[in-house]
C-alpha cells in the first residue's frame, strides 16, 4: 500500500525554466511534508518542508504547494539550473505512527529531474 506516490519517474527541463515535481498521498492524517534531493552515491538531503496547516512555503528558488483537499503537493523550482539535476523524494509524516508523535517518514518512489543547459 503506497501511501505516498510520485507518479512521474522522470522529468526533463531546460535550464532557466520551471520544474514542477508532483506528489500524491492517501493518508489524510499526514501533518507534515518534506522534499529531499538525492545525488548519486549520496544520501538524501533535506530541501524544503511544509506543515499541513499551510498551503505554500517558499525558500529561494524552491516553493512547495500543498492542496489538502486533493491530497497533493508539488515542488516548484524556478529558475531551474543544471545543478538541480538529481532524484527528488517527497515524504510525509504521520503523527499517529507507532502511537507517538515522532518523525517517522513515508517516502515516495522519487522523480529523476534532469535540467539541460
Amino acid at each position, binding site marked *: 500500500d503506497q501511501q505516498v506516490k510520485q507518479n512521474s519517474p522522470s522529468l526533463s527541463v531546460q535550464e532557466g525554466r520551471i520544474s514542477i515535481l508532483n506528489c500524491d498521498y492517501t493518508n489524510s492524517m499526514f501533518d507534515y511534508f518534506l522534499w529531499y534531493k538525492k545525488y548519486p552515491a549520496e544520501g538524501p538531503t533535506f530541501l524544503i518542508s511544509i506543515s499541513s496547516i499551510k498551503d505554500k512555503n517558499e525558500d529561494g528558488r524552491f516553493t512547495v504547494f500543498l492542496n489538502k483537499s486533493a491530497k497533493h503537493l508539488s515542488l516548484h523550482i524556478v529558475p531551474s539550473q543544471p545543478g538541480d539535476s538529481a532524484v527528488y523524494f517527497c515524504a510525509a509524516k504521520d503523527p499517529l505512527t*507507532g502511537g507517538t508523535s515522532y518523525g517517522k517518514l513515508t517516502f515516495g518512489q522519487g522523480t529523476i529531474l534532469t535540467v539541460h543547459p
Partner: protein
Amino acid sequence: GAGVSQSPSNKVTEKGKDVELRCDPISGHTALYWYRQSLGQGLEFLIYFQGNSAPDKSGLPSDRFSAERTGGSVSTLTIQRTQQEDSAVYLCASSVSASVIYEQYFGPGTRLTVT
C-alpha cells in the same frame, strides 16, 4: 561539522551469510533511523531509535533483521542469513529531536549486494 557516516559503503555477500552495517549519527542527535531503498523503490522505513526509549521496530521486514544503538550514538543494523531480496541501499539518518524537528540528515548509505 561531520555529517552522518556509514560503513562499509559497499558490501557484497553470499546468500546465507550474516552482515553488519554501521551508522555514526551526527553528534548530539538523539533520534536515529534506518531505511532501505530497493531498486526503483522509495525509501522504506526499517527502525527508529529515540534516546533511551524502546526502538520502533515496526518496519523490520523479518526477524532476520535487528538493530542496536549503543550509548545513544553508534548504531549497527544486522541482517542474518541474507537473501537476494535483501539487496538494497541501506540508509541511516539522524535528527536533533524527532518530536520537534522533522528534518532528518542522511548518511551516504551502504549498498548491499547478496549473490
